[in-house]
Each structure stands twice: as structure tokens, then as C-alpha cells.
């Protein structure tokens, strides 16, 4: 058994020496290496993308669908998701991931198709595509990362930025009279007859990670049933642009984001769930 560290990766080898943390004896469990490439991610420390990628990969590995799944990456921080997930993936134009996923699923209906999108991508520039994809009931999974900010472009206001929340384009806090209200798009798509399973989860605590993973797994299983769109919002953080430590950002998420975006199923196949 080797450590999951590239020998030529100086940063890590030095860290192993200094910190003594990445050694074989300490290995508790491993990343799903069949589906995840052995590379370091570009995501900031503490960002929810890394965890979400991992559980997504775990599900794909557990369901043994690596050869039957096609993912669509958005424009945003997760634009390079295909550098981490060893599956066939298509990069989409900003906001159009669900349209691209539609195109793939329509010609390959027997495959599992998902899009992975951020809040700016899915709920601002891509609102039309999101609503119509869900309304048509495209038989795909949409994973929606909501951290209330534009991460990649450097912390501008997102459609989901909370009232009063500061960003580089709402430097005095989001004034809803001027800038409009945050859009709870998950509540919107839950109303559409085309959606089959709509849930809001998070990855800021181990228990929530497990719940989110279960939701992703269920969604891929539902795709076999051809009953409509599965939509998972993951309320996430952005330590860098929120200008907080990872720990503080998760605390802030719990105290501020979750009251506004409460967790749980908005639409479940067997009535409203947990």
C-alpha cells in the first residue's frame, strides 16, 4: 500500500516530512481512486467543492457506473471538475450546463447524466435553462452548489447572496431594494411537475456529508426510473471570498445560510421527506 501522494509533488513530500501526517500508518481511508485522479485540487482549503467531488466519485464507484456516466462541468470554480473525476465530461458555457446535459441525455438515454453547477451559473445566467430543463423533466441529476457568491471571478454578488451580505459588488451589504432579493431557485424547481426529487443539503459537517452522499446515490438510482429531474442543492461555503477561515465559514454557513436556505427534501418520490 502506498500513500496517495505523487513522489514528484514537492509540496506534499515536504509536508509529509514536516508534519508527519501523510504516512501509510496513519491512513484511515482512501479516496475513491478509480473515479478520482491522483492530483491535488485547485480548490481553496475548506471549500465544499472538494468534499462534494469526493462523495460524487464515491457514489459513482459504489454504483459501478463509471463507464455509464457523463458529467457536465459549468463555468465557475468547478470548471475544472473533469481534472479530478475520471469519467467522461463535457465543459459547458456559462449557465448552459443543463442544456448541454439535455443534449447528451436525449441522444444517450441509457447513460447517467449529471450537471454540476454553481449559483451564478445555475440561478443567474442559466435560470432559463435550469427552469426549462426541470420543467421538461429531463431525466438527469443537477447538482447545485450554493455558496452565495461568485467564487471564481473573485467574490461578486450572486443571485443567492443573502440580504445584507457583503460582496465585492455589494460592498455595503446586499440592499434588496436596489439589488433585488436572493433567488431560492430550488423552491422554484420543486414546484415544477418535471422534477422528481428535489432536496437541499450541505457538506459542512460529517453527518451532512453522509446525507448529501445518500441524496446523490438516490438520484442516480432514480435516473433508471425515468421519472424526471433530480435536483440537489448543496449549501456550501467560500472561505476565500467570505474572507473567513474554513472553520469560521462553516460556522457562518450554519448561522446565516441555513436559516435562509433550510435543509431537507423539498420534493421526494414518497411524499415530502425528512
Amino acid at each position, binding site marked *: 500500500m502506498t500513500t496517495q501522494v505523487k513522489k514528484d509533488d514537492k509540496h506534499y513530500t515536504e509536508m509529509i516530512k514536516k508534519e508527519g501526517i501523510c504516512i501509510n500508518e496513519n491512513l484511515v481511508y482512501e479516496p475513491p481512486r478509480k473515479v478520482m*485522479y491522483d492530483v491535488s485540487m485547485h480548490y481553496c482549503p475548506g471549500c465544499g467543492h472538494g468534499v462534494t467531488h469526493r462523495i460524487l466519485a464515491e457514489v459513482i464507484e459504489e454504483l459501478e457506473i*463509471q*463507464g*455509464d*456516466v*457523463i458529467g*457536465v*462541468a459549468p463555468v465557475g470554480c468547478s*470548471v*475544472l471538475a*473533469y481534472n479530478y*473525476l*475520471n*469519467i*467522461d*465530461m*463535457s*465543459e*459547458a*458555457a456559462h449557465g*448552459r450546463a443543463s*442544456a*448541454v*446535459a*439535455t*443534449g*447528451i*441525455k*436525449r*441522444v*444517450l438515454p441509457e*447513460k447517467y447524466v449529471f450537471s454540476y453547477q454553481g449559483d451564478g451559473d445555475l440561478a443567474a445566467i442559466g435560470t*432559463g*435553462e435550469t427552469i*426549462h430543463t426541470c420543467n421538461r423533466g429531463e431525466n438527469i441529476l443537477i447538482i447545485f452548489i450554493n455558496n452565495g457568491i461568485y467564487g471564481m471571478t473573485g467574490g461578486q454578488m450572486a443571485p443567492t447572496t443573502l440580504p445584507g451580505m457583503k460582496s465585492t459588488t455589494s460592498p455595503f451589504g446586499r440592499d434588496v431594494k436596489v439589488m433585488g432579493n436572493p433567488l431560492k431557485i430550488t423552491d422554484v424547481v420543486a414546484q415544477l411537475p418535471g422534477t422528481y426529487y428535489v432536496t437541499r443539503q450541505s457538506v459542512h459537517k460529517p453527518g451532512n456529508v453522509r446525507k448529501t452522499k445518500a441524496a446523490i446515490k438516490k438520484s442516480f438510482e432514480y435516473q433508471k426510473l425515468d421519472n424526471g429531474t433530480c435536483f440537489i442543492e448543496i449549501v456550501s461555503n467560500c472561505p476565500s471570498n467570505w474572507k473567513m477561515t474554513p472553520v469560521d465559514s462553516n460556522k457562518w454557513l450554519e448561522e446565516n445560510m441555513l436559516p435562509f436556505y433550510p435543509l431537507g427534501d423539498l420534493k421526494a418520490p414518497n411524499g415530502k421527506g425528512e
Partner: protein
Amino acid sequence: MKELKLMKGNEALAEAAIRVGCDAYFGYPITPQSEILEYLSREATNRTGMVVLQAESEIASINMVYGAAGTGKKAMTSSSSPGISLMQEGISYIACAELPCLLVNVNRGGPGLGTIQPGQGDYFQAVKGGGHGDYHLIVLAPNTVQEMADFVKLSFDLAFKYRNPVMILADGALGQMMEKVELFPQEERTFSDLGWTTIGRRKGKDGKVITSLYLQSEQMEQINIGLQKKYDTIRKNEVRYEAINCDDAEYVITAFGLISRICQKTADLAREKGIKVGILRPITLFPFPYEVLRKLADKVKGFLDVEMNAGQMVEDVMLGVEGKVPVEFYGRMGGIIPTPEEILEVLEKKLVGGTK
């Protein structure tokens, strides 16, 4: 036995898409090409299982094409000028990701919402790029309903040969008018693993990626160099044109699409008057037949370029002629189709009179 039908240009194109075994059409209604979506909605799925989906916008349509084309399936969309403008971002992505697909523009008069009458004002957009970045579509310009059908097949052949989007640039009149068309027989819808496509990870191989994102400048430059090499090959191999009576011509009219047929009548009228006029019709607008023009310019007295716009292809004609002889232009806009007599008058006044 020949299968002859009287069909609208739009319908002939749609019928050809079914017969060529096209896998998916994504589109949004816009005049004067809605018959394509209507015809396919009515005919295609029942006959071949082809996917036909009316999208919520042209933006969604082109991105659905992007997704479907990335699997190696034969995918297409069609629209008219304002709708094609909306698609430009997606077309640029498709060109960079090198996805084979067919785009149809049944050109109407612009700019803006313009008119639903025919126009050729989208030449620059189709031929010179349209979207952002350095890329080219292969652009085919039919001038008969027959070619509306035939070029569908040719387009998919070229698209897959070069992994490049192909555009059929027609106009509203060609889309709406009815003519006799000989249809080719139904072809099987086939699907094969092209290797680079996103169809689910192949065993023992890393996942395939369809993307147009290269954050390292050196890598992005290499992608561009690769594209430019491909365009050079296309320029070398795929120039198509029709030259009518150019051998003994003193003057040559250049025109593409439907207007080239009106110019043929002009040429006939001119020859009745003793003026030897030939027609050069570029069939591929990219690649453009510069070389043919270069050679013609050595032996004719002048060119008249006729278009249903303010003068777009004329710039390419001038590039081909290299200033050796005069290149005059005559165009009508706003959806007006000039008459043969009108064009003859211009020819006589601007060229024959001027060079005497």
C-alpha cells in the same frame, strides 16, 4: 427510380436531415425557417427515431447541439439571423471543442429584428467568425431547393471529416420557395465510437473531456495553431464553386445563393446584347475560391459582385482579384431581391461603359 417531389426549401432540408440519418435536432421557432422544426416534429421521430426537441431559446438549442455533438451523434439546429446571433457564443465553443454538427441559417434582412424577408447580411457573421476568437465554420451556400437537400448530406460528411461545425447559409426566399427536388434514399442511423467522444468512460482509459478551456497561454496557443492548420487543410481541399460561361467572359458577375440564379438571367440578357458575361458562384463561402478569382482576374475586364446586403462577399472578391481589374458592387437590402434587368443596367453603366 428517381424520387421527385415539389417541396419548400426548408422542407427539403428537413427531409434530407431525416434521410441522412441525423440523430438529433434542437431548435426554436423563427421566421422564415420554422418549417424545418415543424416538418421534423411531424416526420422525424416516427420514421427514424431521431430526437426532435423544441428548446426554450436558440441559446439552449445550440448548447443542446454541443452536448449531443460531443457524443459523436449527428446533431443539428436551424434558425434565422437574430436567432443565429444568439447562438454565437455556443458556436464558438463548438468550433474550439471541434464538434461536428450542422447549423442552418435561413438568412433574413437585418440588422436588429429587421424583416422576415430574405437577406444575405449574415455573410460576415457566417464566414469571418461571428462568435469570439479565431475560428471558422465551413460555410455552404445553396442556390436551389435541390441543394438545400443535398448540402445536408455534404455538411455532415465535411463536419465529421474535419471535426468542424458546418453552416448552410441560405436565405428566406430559398427556404420558402417550392421547387422540384430529387431525394436521396433513406440512410440508416448509425453510431460508432469515435474515440474522442463523451459516451461513458472506456474501459482501461481515462475519461474523455469535451472542453474549450485551456488556462495556460502556451496550451491555448497550441490549440489555436491546431485549428489554423485544420483550416488551411480545409482551404486546400474543400473549395467548391460553380463557374458558368467564364471561359470566354469579358465580365464576371460574382454572387452566392439564390441571387446567383437571378444573375444568370442577367448574363443571358447581356449575351443577347453581345456582352460576354460569366457567373462565378462560390458554393463554399469558407473556404472561399480566391484562387479561381485570381486566375479569372488575369483575363476579364472587370467583376460585378451582387448581393442582398450592403457589400460583404465583395471584400473577398477584391482579395481574390488583387486589384488587377475593377470590382464593382451592387446590392439591395431590407429583403428586396433585385431583378435581372436592374443588375444588367448596373453592369452596363458601371463596368461596360466604364471600361470602354
